[in-house]
């Protein structure tokens, strides 16, 4: 067991809360003005399956369980699960709900190697590499003069409904780098 600050928690992390193992489904960091930075956590109890929401101060210490992990690749989806395969062709089904934060990065023939986490031999979460590359399916045309890179606009990823803010110069068909921890655009490839 190790200690992690609530502000550093990510989807897929497992923490012990009131004696129960809870996997983080979604972690939303919020800070404004004089308010203490807080993290809204959507978590699933690995023993009961019950999903709950809570809010904690970002500097709160949480007990994290380090679980078994395996490198896998995405195979296919069969709602409500997504199927991943390890190097020995073992298949693992993961609830789509558990992947709520990262489901948007899934795509057919995806080559990214992800990390599947197991709790008592059951696959419970998926962590993507820190940076992934995806194609832009739609974005508004570049506005004349907005080439500084400081102005942003919305773009939708191919194979996904995920919309994120990208630099104004990004065009349809461009490949872009995305930070999977923040969900934000990094740069055009």
């Amino acid at each position: 067991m190790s200690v992690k600050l609530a502000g550093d928690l990510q989807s897929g992390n497992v923490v012990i809360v009131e004696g129960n193992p809870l996997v983080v489904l979604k972690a939303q960091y919020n800070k404004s003005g004089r308010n203490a930075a807080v993290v809204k956590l959507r978590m699933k109890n690995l023993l009961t399956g019950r999903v709950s929401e809570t809010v904690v101060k970002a500097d709160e210490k949480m007990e994290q369980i380090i679980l078994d992990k395996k490198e896998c690749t995405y195979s296919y989806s069969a709602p409500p699960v997504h199927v991943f395969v390890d190097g020995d062709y073992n298949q693992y089904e993961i609830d789509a709900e558990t992947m709520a934060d990262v489901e948007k990065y899934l795509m057919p023939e995806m080559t990214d190697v992800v990390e599947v986490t197991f709790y008592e031999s059951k696959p419970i979460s998926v962590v993507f590499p820190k940076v992934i590359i995806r194609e832009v399916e739609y974005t508004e045309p570049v506005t004349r003069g907005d080439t500084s890179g400081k102005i942003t606009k919305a773009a939708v990823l191919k194979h996904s409904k995920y919309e994120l803010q990208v630099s104004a110069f990004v065009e349809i068909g461009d490949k872009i780098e995305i930070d999977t921890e923040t969900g934000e655009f990094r740069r055009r490839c």
Partner: protein
Amino acid sequence: MADRWDIFCRVIDNYGDIGVCWRLARQLHYELGIRVRLWVDRLEVLTHLCPQVQMNQGCQQVDGIEICQWESCSEETLTARVVIEAFACEIPSCYQRSLLSLHESEPNPPVVWINLEYLSAEDWVSECHGLATPGSSTSLRKYFFFPGFTTETGGLLKEAGLREQVRRYQQEFTSQVSQATPELWARLVGKSGDNPLPESHEMPGELRVSLFCYLNPLIPQLLDYWSSRSAPTSLFVTQGLATNQVAEWCGHPLKAGDRLQIGALELLILPFLPPPAYDELLWSCDFNFVRGEDSFVRAQWANRPLIWQIYPQEDSAHHKKLEAFLSLYLRGICNLEAVSEFWRLWNHIPPDRSWAHASGIEDAWEKLLHFRQEWNRHSQEWADRLDRKGNLANNLQMFVRKIREETSRS
């Protein structure tokens, strides 16, 4: 037996934190019949808001509220069953232990522990409002309670009868325009020999403005401008950082009770005003410059245009907070650019590219004046809108009931 609540407040700086807690304590006591104990770490700050407070007492009863110095809290302190830690201040560990022990040994009625946060109009606030933060190994949870401007949040502090009080005051005040400024000034500074009642004056087109703000480099520019306009401006300067800046601009020291005419600008220097007197100032002025949280909320109940200086943060975390409020506040109002433009300038926030911004604070002020009537109307409507969302003290009481019911059922 009346319910008993403890409120803990650490004063970070200024008067906002304790101002909110003091108002809340009084409202809980007077309107909802709750016995309130207010714990504060810097009693001297509270004495400004409530002069009856004695500095040398660990615990004292003032105006129906038990006020205790933070250091007086010990292992022997009996805990209340409803505890509010204001603005994430972390209640003393000895008190936490007692609270936990009470929660485990006498679960009925359930203990409710609330973290009352700062006010914000941001969307995430409604998503986090009312959620519990889990305890490490016990079932005693702390609930986040966020004040706010929508029904999904905890609402704003507002005493019963406040709206009616403001309405009556403003009807009376506007019926005696020619005497209004000198009489208001005399009332606020006192009628002692040092501060004689100024002679009556009649200044058509006069604007009354109150100024309560943090240090702001735009103050001298605004004073230059007001003094050079043809129409008169009466500026009520509240005691604090702004007074020093105004004195620098004048070139000589200023003290409470001073009244100077510089060109078209009449400067009226006020002493520290206790909350009721400050309210009266806000209700009387045509424009109110306010800051922080407490004066910001009071200005919204004043039915008058306000200009907010948000508490500045090094990482500019306050910018988003200000924009969130602007977007909510200006919904349904025309010429909103003039307000947002002035507010952004006043808060040193870079202008939005989507609108052509003013060349300076003078230009921005002129734009505000152009639609003063509409903004006046909007200020009234905004307060009406807020009024329909309940108020913080009542919402807190309802929240405590809900948590108790849920806890008892589970």
